[in-house]
């Protein structure tokens, strides 16, 4: 053990002050920072903030969605359209290190509200659907529209379905994660330079940046003969490289692939005497590579169909094949690996406790706190600022 690991320390962002002014497009960024230990104040216009009503709800009618995405926040209700509200907001801005925003600051028309004058060190991350300029800057884009215009929807589904959106608010989980990256980058820089500044994040660009092969097929036309020009038509789970696909087994479905070690995969097929013609020498020629990939996927599909899904998945993994069992939410919730890693977290609500995903990372020295119960104040006072350490 090195000296670095003897004493667990506070969460990595302990002492960092974040002002969360975000809707769905940025709230996940605030969550990441808050869960990493940042002291995070969320401003809401009233107790009826729309996000507090988002499903799913628990049996008390409380939003489980909100309990998770607004974790570790102190909530203060401020009317940013009133002079009193602007005065309170100015006070918070003057003490913040980071603002995660989705357009609130821009909407304030008061000439006395100038971020740079109030706090030249503050990092202002502004997540918008399309950015501050351009022909679509005023377009409305809830998750489905963001995914459609961003390119994720066209790549999902198959010839027998419409294009399909990703489950949940995935578009905004991408922009939210980018918001956290922007905030910490800006903070790192402000420590060096003494200056904060504004960072714009168009949701649209973040989605277009995270499409794996989609831009590659458009930017490298001709490299992939199975493309339709610059586009690979949506085709269910069949991966763009043709070597990963979800196939039916007995009692479930499994994602199978002969990669990364095709020889090893063939050896297993030979062991089971189901290799068919895969040992044919012509498949070793580079020009027959794609034909071979299709052939081995056909053989795998036929073979896997005879196997019990769950036990076959574990057998494959015991041999270090990256196969994956298709799991439903209840199966994920009861996953023995996550259970043994003590991964799930409890998120206190007003009258109950929700259970949900934990953090996707662990730090060897810094300890991440358990989510604290959200506290809501109906106005800002010096007492509150003292209580939460924003003095």
């Amino acid at each position, binding site marked *: 053990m090195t000296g670095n690991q003897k004493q667990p320390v506070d969460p990595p962002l302990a002492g960092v002050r974040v002002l969360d002014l975000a809707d769905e497009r940025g709230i996940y960024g605030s969550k990441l920072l808050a869960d990493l230990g940042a002291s995070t104040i969320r401003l809401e216009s009233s107790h009826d903030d729309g996000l507090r009503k*988002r499903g799913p709800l628990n049996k008390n009618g409380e939003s489980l969605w909100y309990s998770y995405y607004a974790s570790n926040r102190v909530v203060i209700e401020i009317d940013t359209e009133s002079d009193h509200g602007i005065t309170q907001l100015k006070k918070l801005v003057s003490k913040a290190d980071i603002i995660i925003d989705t357009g609130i600051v821009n909407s304030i028309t008061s000439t006395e509200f100038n971020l740079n004058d109030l706090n030249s060190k503050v990092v202002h991350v502004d997540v918008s659907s399309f950015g501050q300029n351009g022909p679509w800057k005023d377009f409305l884009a809830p998750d489905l529209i963001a995914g459609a215009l961003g390119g994720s929807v066209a*790549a999902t589904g198959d010839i027998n379905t419409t294009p399909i959106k990703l489950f949940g608010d995935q578009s905004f989980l991408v922009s939210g994660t980018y918001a956290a990256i922007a905030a910490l980058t800006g903070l790192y820089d402000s420590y060096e330079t003494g200056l904060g500044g504004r960072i714009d994040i168009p949701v649209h660009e973040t989605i277009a940046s995270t499409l794996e092969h989609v831009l590659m097929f458009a930017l490298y036309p001709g490299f992939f003969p199975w493309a339709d020009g610059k586009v690979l038509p949506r085709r269910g789970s069949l991966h763009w490289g043709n070597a990963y696909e979800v196939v039916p087994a007995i009692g479930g479905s499994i994602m199978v692939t002969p990669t990364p070690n095709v020889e090893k995969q063939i050896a297993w097929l030979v062991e089971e005497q189901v290799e068919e013609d895969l040992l044919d020498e012509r498949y070793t020629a580079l020009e027959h590579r794609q034909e071979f990939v299709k052939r081995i996927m056909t053989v795998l599909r036929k073979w896997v169909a005879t196997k019990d899904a769950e036990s076959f998945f574990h057998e494959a993994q015991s041999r270090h094949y990256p196969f994956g069992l298709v799991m439903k939410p209840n199966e994920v919730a009861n996953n023995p690996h996550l259970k043994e890693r003590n991964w799930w977290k409890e998120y206190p609500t007003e009258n109950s406790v929700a259970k949900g995903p934990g953090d996707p990372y662990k730090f060897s020295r810094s300890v991440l706190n358990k989510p604290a119960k959200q506290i809501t104040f109906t106005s800002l006072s010096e007492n509150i600022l003292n209580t939460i350490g924003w003095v």
Partner: protein
Amino acid sequence: MAELPFNGLRVLDFTHVLAGPYSTRILGDLGADVVKIMSEARHGPDGGTSSPYHAMWNRSKRVLQLDMTQPDARLICADLCNEADIVIDNFSPGVLDRWGIGYQVTAIENPSVIYIQMSGMGDSGPWSSYVSFAPTVHALAGLTYLTGVPGREDIGIGFSYNDHQSGLHGTVALLAALIERRKSGLGQRIELSQFEVGTTFNAPALLDFFANESITGPSGNELPFDQAAPHNCYPCLGTDRWIAIAIMSDDQWTRLIEKMGTPDWATGPSLAHVTGRLKNQTFIDQRISEWTQSRIAEDLMTLLQSNGVPAGVVQTGEDLVDNDPQLASSNFIFEYANEHPTLGKISGDRLPLHFEGTLIDKYSRPEIFGESNRQILKDWLDMTDDDINSNIQSGLIR
């Protein structure tokens, strides 16, 4: 911000395929000196430095070609680790330890170093030795099951979403550790599980199961937990052209049917409220499809958005690169200033972060094997030409 924020930060990159390279691409775009260790003999599933896939995720880095099967190459790596601010890998647990360059060893000489390991399953637990690519994680985390249509399990997300998200979350964790290091002066090791990253994205379904024992299923383009209708993709004129329409309020419904010419079927009180529309979704979707299928998707989008109706063309990669006026207005797709030695003139997509006062618009193109070997060893280890020539002769590097 006058200079790039991470100028001077040294990142040693042992990653491959997409998740790790996407993280180090971001750090490199932001100014870090990212040195990617690669072996020509064992370059992994991303096809080597002349593949478009490698080129997509490995700009803003320099490539050091080392044969890690040789013990002396690992000694060079140990020296590089001692000079690094960040060491990143997405191998299965234990690979760097076996090479003698794991965190515990490096931290003795370099206590401020931050390591992150982005393995599939994390260090511990009964599945810790399980291996994965993004499609594996999609399946195990529930993403494949939940993204699709009822009755099918073989759709899922059509691209390696979780690889990108693992890279993004790895970057968040690294930056948090860098912020912490300013106070403590010490680095640490971060363990990231790509499976756990993927599982967080199904949070609503998992929260619902734990609270209500309700098992969420795939629901196509409908929202499983929120009331919105119509909310779907509709066919348009042309081959496989679609428009997405997402009516999130009764007011937007009124605006939609106004642009449709206020047809009789849509004006009854039963559809005025979302409850009635949810009961009649199939009927409504059919009527909207009849209206959209003879129209151009782009024209429909402009028509509907101009009336406050959320609508968007279902854009393909070709649309994004060639036809998207919004991306064109921010020069999102750009051509690298220098030609790639084997791929020729190539283009990429900009970092989607716009810093006030600092235009991040210069990206070094992806390198090929060995391109910066000599300069990296001089910059990081102060090696002389004689030292480098000796290592070349012994086959450690080229």
